[in-house]
């Protein structure tokens, strides 16, 4: 079983794999792209680039703080510096460096966090990036992208490298359903409407977009018309799409594989509360650390599945 299967979607590659393949391909066209790794390139998938372009690749060892500041130095010399680690090690271990070496001086550093969410499974909570979006969003001027499938991740990688300035890209470990055709349109900050609906809007990103589509499929059977928005960019968030959804569907449910505080739910709520206040509900990890286990078992236990989304929709339907 995988999210999207219920809705007839095919299983595709993990977003970390799509990022790695795209990075290597783009690296051939962009000699200014360099990679800094903290010895997890075979996990975050910068490895294909590093093997293809060894002179532009720097493995600094298990030292995320140094990795981020070295990337900043390379960027200040005109490079497009990509650095990556597990989302939690990147954002939590190197937060001061992301703040002082990257965000504050507006450096052209792309920082990519893999192994996001609880769906990494058996390795357990120490490896799960569930606070990364909140931390990244808190940095002034930093854009935050959470792509939902392999196709979108490739497009997001290209868009990220084409834009100057600091950007956080969040990828995942597990395979996810294919939501988009090859060559689909992708713009940073522009949400994508996957399903139209009139009773409620489900706003999701990452792995949870396919789950939201499945929830919409289920809800349709019960006569509830749910709009699904893929909010791949958390910052700057697509306010226009949120306001339109609030106005037209009058109810919003926000779904993410992240803690309750400071993630997509908080960002959307901030927009809704000051524009078109409507009833909202949230599906997320809550305010806790998870545990080791099989990925689907964890997603079910921590309430990150289509059934939980359906329940949240019902809670705002009254």
């Amino acid at each position, binding site marked *: 079983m995988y999210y999207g299967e219920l809705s007839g979607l095919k299983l595709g590659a993990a977003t970390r794999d799509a990022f790695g393949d795209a990075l290597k391909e783009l690296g051939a066209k962009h000699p200014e792209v360099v990679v800094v790794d903290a010895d997890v390139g075979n996990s975050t998938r910068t490895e294909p680039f590093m093997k293809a372009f060894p002179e532009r690749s720097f493995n600094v*060892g298990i*030292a995320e703080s140094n990795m981020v500041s*070295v990337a900043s*130095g390379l960027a200040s010399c005109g490079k497009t510096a990509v650095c990556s680690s597990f989302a939690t090690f990147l954002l939590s271990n190197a937060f*001061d460096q992301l703040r002082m070496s990257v965000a*504050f*001086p*507006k450096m052209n550093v792309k920082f990519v966090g893999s192994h996001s969410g609880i769906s990494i499974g058996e390795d357990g909570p120490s490896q799960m990036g569930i606070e990364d979006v909140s931390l990244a969003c808190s940095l002034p001027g930093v854009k935050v992208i959470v792509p939902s499938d392999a196709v979108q991740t490739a497009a997001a990688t290209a868009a990220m490298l084409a834009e100057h300035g600091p950007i956080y890209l969040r990828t995942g470990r597990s395979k996810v359903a294919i939501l988009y055709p090859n060559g689909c349109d992708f713009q940073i900050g522009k949400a994508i409407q996957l399903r139209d609906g009139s009773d409620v809007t489900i706003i999701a990103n990452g792995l949870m977009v396919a789950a939201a589509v499945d929830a919409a499929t289920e809800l349709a059977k019960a006569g509830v018309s749910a709009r699904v928005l893929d909010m791949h960019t958390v910052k700057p968030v697509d306010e226009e799409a949120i306001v339109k959804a609030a106005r037209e569907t009058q109810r919003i449910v926000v779904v993410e594989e992240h803690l309750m505080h400071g993630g997509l739910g908080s960002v959307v709520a901030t927009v809704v509360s000051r524009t078109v206040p409507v009833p909202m509900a949230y599906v997320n990890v809550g305010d806790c650390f998870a545990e080791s286990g099989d990925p689907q078992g964890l997603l079910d236990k921590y309430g990150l599945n289509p059934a939980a989304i359906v329940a949240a929709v019902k809670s705002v339907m009254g």
Partner: protein
Amino acid sequence: MAVSIEELQAKAKQLRKHIIRMTTAAGSGHPSSSLSAVEMITALYFGGFMKYRPQEPQWPSRDRFILSKGHAVPALYAAMAEAGYFTVEATMSLRKLGSVFEGHPNMARMPGIEASTGSLGQGLSIGLGQALGLRLDKLDSRVFVMTGDGELDEGQVWEAAAAAGKFKPGNLTLIVDQNGYQQTGATKDVLDMRPIADKFAAFGWHTQVVNGNCQANAFAALTIATNIKDRPTCIVSQTQKGFGILPLLEAEGDLNYHGKPLSAALAEKAIAFLGS
């Protein structure tokens, strides 16, 4: 050499006066931490070790200086003013609302500043990244980084020291301004990181230990460091916090004098003490 030690000493004296004047005018700042670093910064900017263009601060082939101990930025502003990036008068707006002369270096607001610092420990890593970037572009440019000795408490410095040992950027020079004090006391009491040179040598760096408040020694150390091209170089610059006006600080009963400006009266005495 194009410039004499006497000329550099005269320049250093000017820098000291600027530091005292701007921090006293600001009513806050770190004059003593700035004063210890003056001979090295003077040698870098006026001794012919750095190529730079004040009218074209982003010139790609320039050499770069990163002040990782960002609280000593009055020393850098003073040197940049003397170099022609801006007027000395302009630096007197230090720390005032609206001024680009912020309390710590901010490259986003001031061309010629090579890294935004103030959270200790990051400058060497940034400098390593710059050294690697310049090497990648086959530019004959050098990166100089200055840390404090208290700053060596930060683990990131040693991440960078090890990584520089691996990548061997021959265009990277670290100057440790070992003035012997950090915020709450003597570095030997707070966290003794000595022997400093031995630690960098163990990571594959070329090292020197010099009297960093001796202008001739500072000049000689930089001459040696810049002639080494096959590995990173570290100069442990043994200095004194507040050098130049030490008898006055001693009379005040505080040889650390950390993070406080001189009173207007004391500043006047200090400038007279430094002489013309």
